[in-house]
């Protein structure tokens, strides 16, 4: 056993209202610069839909992630080492900017400079790449709330992966079937394909917290990470010629604060916490041959932070005491492993993603009320989950590689929780049959309810600060890192100005002990 710590996230999709606040605050923080106009480290998609960039989930086309070779060993789907070096001159699977969208701006000057006249002046969209007039034909959230779904969403590979008859029915009537939002950031995978594909060794996973970063000084612009990531969460900055990606807001995480997307999330649906995992088990978990076992294998590499043997090994691996304590209180471990309600996005990509999702119950609830049923009645909802194959099968192709039973189990648990708490609140009764159906105790049920429904700030985010014994070293090296320069995502330019010296982060570092009661 070789325990390592990973900062991970869970998103509770039922609560996402698709407001894009996370995307906007993330963009303001990290990608409002030349060369990253089209880049959204955080984006929110409407499902069903083809997503951003277009159809990124179609790995037969984009060849992202890992597959097993004939001998059952992991290999990058885009090919081995020699093939990669031979395709350096032109990457055969790189998306073009049109697969994202052509970034635009407006010629605002005309509003100010137009001569007085009978008509209100209008502004025209201009391509941010060429400066020419352009028509806006796509965007990062073009498909918002199923916009254009009748035309495009048929291309969603998750529909193609459903049983044929169900897929046909979805294609026929998107608007009536279901809809939900899927916010996405980099998954900070345990087996990151981007890192494996970077020929320069510029991409790395941090040993302490598992955050995956691009070393801006060592990236040479071979653009292999962009195509190897099955989630398409590494981007090329076309201005600097280097790759950039979601940083999990590491300067904030290091000071014990949640990421910007999580901090500003209107639905308060994001959870951040540590998980301990066995680094020696990663390869085996990523290379299980039975696709039906992928999910369990990936869940299986998390270590129980209460287990004395794990604690012992974690100490031996220099994981600090407060980090172990944080792992024990981790909402991510709670939701993914103890309660088993969170699922990874596309486990079949075999990158072992570390942003997990609680699948939305709302499509089922909507279906029940559409059928004039009572969606507060757990029985009716259970039946709907069983009978209404469509949302369940679709969610299964997103989160469980097609295993509808697992998704149905999670949805039943969520529905049972609602029913249980409803009875508790209305007349104080205890719905024992719901506890039996889910195999949970009353305490566990109420804890799950508290975490999902009340979701207090301190319980949503359990983030131990980086160790301040290392403070000076941190400030001097990584946090004032290569991202922090003109054209780099940090953009303060301080490094350049100050030569190579330590750089102050423009962010207050709170005292180690949280004051509590915030929010």
């Amino acid at each position, binding site marked *: 056993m070789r325990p390592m710590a990973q900062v991970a996230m869970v998103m509770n999709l039922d609560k996402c209202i698709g407001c894009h606040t996370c995307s906007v605050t993330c963009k303001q923080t990290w990608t409002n610069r030349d060369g990253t106009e089209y880049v959204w480290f955080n984006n929110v998609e409407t499902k069903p839909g083809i997503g951003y960039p277009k159809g990124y989930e179609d790995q037969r086309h984009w060849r992202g992630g890992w597959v097993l070779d004939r001998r059952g060993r992991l290999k990058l789907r885009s090919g081995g080492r020699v093939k990669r070096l031979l395709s350096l001159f032109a990457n055969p699977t790189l998306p073009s900017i049109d697969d994202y969208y052509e970034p635009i701006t407006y010629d605002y000057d005309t509003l100010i400079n137009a001569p007085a006249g009978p008509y209100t002046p209008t502004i025209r969209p201009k391509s941010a790449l060429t400066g020419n007039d352009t028509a806006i034909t796509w965007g990062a959230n073009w498909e918002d709330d199923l916009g254009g779904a009748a035309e495009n969403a048929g291309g969603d590979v998750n529909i193609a992966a459903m049983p044929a008859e169900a897929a046909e029915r979805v294609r026929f009537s998107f608007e009536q079937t279901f809809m939900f939002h899927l916010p996405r950031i980099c998954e900070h995978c345990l087996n990151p394909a981007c890192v494996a594909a970077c020929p320069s060794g510029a991409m790395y996973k941090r040993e302490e917290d598992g955050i995956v970063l691009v070393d801006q000084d060592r990236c040479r612009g071979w653009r292999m990470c962009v195509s190897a990531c099955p989630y398409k969460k590494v981007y090329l900055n076309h201005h600097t010629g280097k790759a950039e990606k979601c940083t999990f807001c590491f300067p904030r995480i290091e000071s014990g604060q949640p990421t910007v997307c999580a901090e500003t999330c209107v639905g308060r649906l994001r959870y951040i916490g540590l998980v301990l995992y066995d680094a020696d088990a990663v390869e085996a978990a990523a290379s299980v041959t039975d696709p039906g076992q992928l999910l369990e294998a990936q869940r299986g590499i998390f270590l129980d932070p209460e287990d004395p043997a794990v604690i012992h090994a974690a100490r031996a691996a220099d994981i600090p005491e407060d980090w172990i304590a944080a792992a024990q209180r981790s909402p991510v471990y709670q939701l993914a492993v103890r309660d088993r309600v969170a699922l990874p996005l596309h486990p079949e990509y075999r990158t072992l993603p570390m942003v997990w999702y609680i699948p939305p119950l709302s499509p089922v609830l909507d279906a029940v009320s559409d059928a004039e049923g009572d969606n507060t009645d757990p029985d009716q909802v259970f039946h709907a989950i069983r009978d209404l194959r469509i949302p369940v099968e679709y969610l299964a192709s997103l989160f469980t590689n097609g295993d509808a039973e697992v998704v149905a189990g999670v949805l039943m648990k969520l529905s049972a929780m609602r029913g249980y708490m409803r009875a508790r609140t209305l007349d104080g009764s205890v719905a024992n049959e719901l506890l039996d159906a889910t195999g949970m105790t009353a305490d566990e049920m109420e804890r799950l309810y508290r975490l999902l429904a009340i979701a207090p700030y301190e319980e949503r985010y359990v983030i131990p600060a980086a160790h301040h014994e290392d403070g000076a070293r941190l400030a001097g090296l990584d946090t004032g890192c*290569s991202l922090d320069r003109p054209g780099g995502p940090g953009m303060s330019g301080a490094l350049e100005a100050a030569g190579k010296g330590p750089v102050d982060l423009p962010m207050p570092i709170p005292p180690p002990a949280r004051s509590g009661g915030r929010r």
Partner: protein
Amino acid sequence: MTAFDIALWGIVPYIALTVFVVGHIWRWRVDQFGWTTHTTQLLENRWLRLGSPLFHFGLLAVIAGHVLGLLVPASWTHALGVSEAVYHALAVWGGALAGLAMMAGLALLLARRLINGRVRRTTSSMDKAMFTVLVVLVVLGMVQTVGVNLLGGGYDYRETVAVWFRGIFYLQPDASLMVGAPLAYQLHALVAWIFIGMWPFTRLVHAWSVPIAYLWRPYLVYRKRSGTPAGARR
């Protein structure tokens, strides 16, 4: 032989080589962030998919040809039993083929840079200077190989240009060997020195970063937060 000849064939190479070496050291130390291929494949894919491999593979063959022609003395190939006729045929036809591939690739790359507005907008003034010199260099090279050696009377550069070139590295360049060379050879050599002098200040530095170590590196790279590489694992 005039003082001008000596300056041209005896001093210019050393200036170029000095700028080349010192320039690279300087750039490596101050500009890691700018050290990149500066890929434009995101902006234009179709022409690049054809042009870039054509250009680069042609170029690698051309470089191999230069090594063979300039650095390997004729006596060595003779000793290996390669007759003059065989060498000549190989050099001329091989060179012409590689050169043509490279030229076709370069033409495609240039065309997309000029025609495609997105790529054109990313072109820096250093790019413009570099591409100009590169085009002149390549055209002059083709004039030698195709014009002089294939279609014209031929010229045995291995007895003159190559000897002079090797002399530069023995610190004994014999300028007189170049004075008698055909104009195309003289110009090609001169432009090549300009190109070499420009190298460290352009995107061409990407050529030194060919990631060969990727062949044996472990797939996953872990690093400590302190920034010191902890060594790759797995």
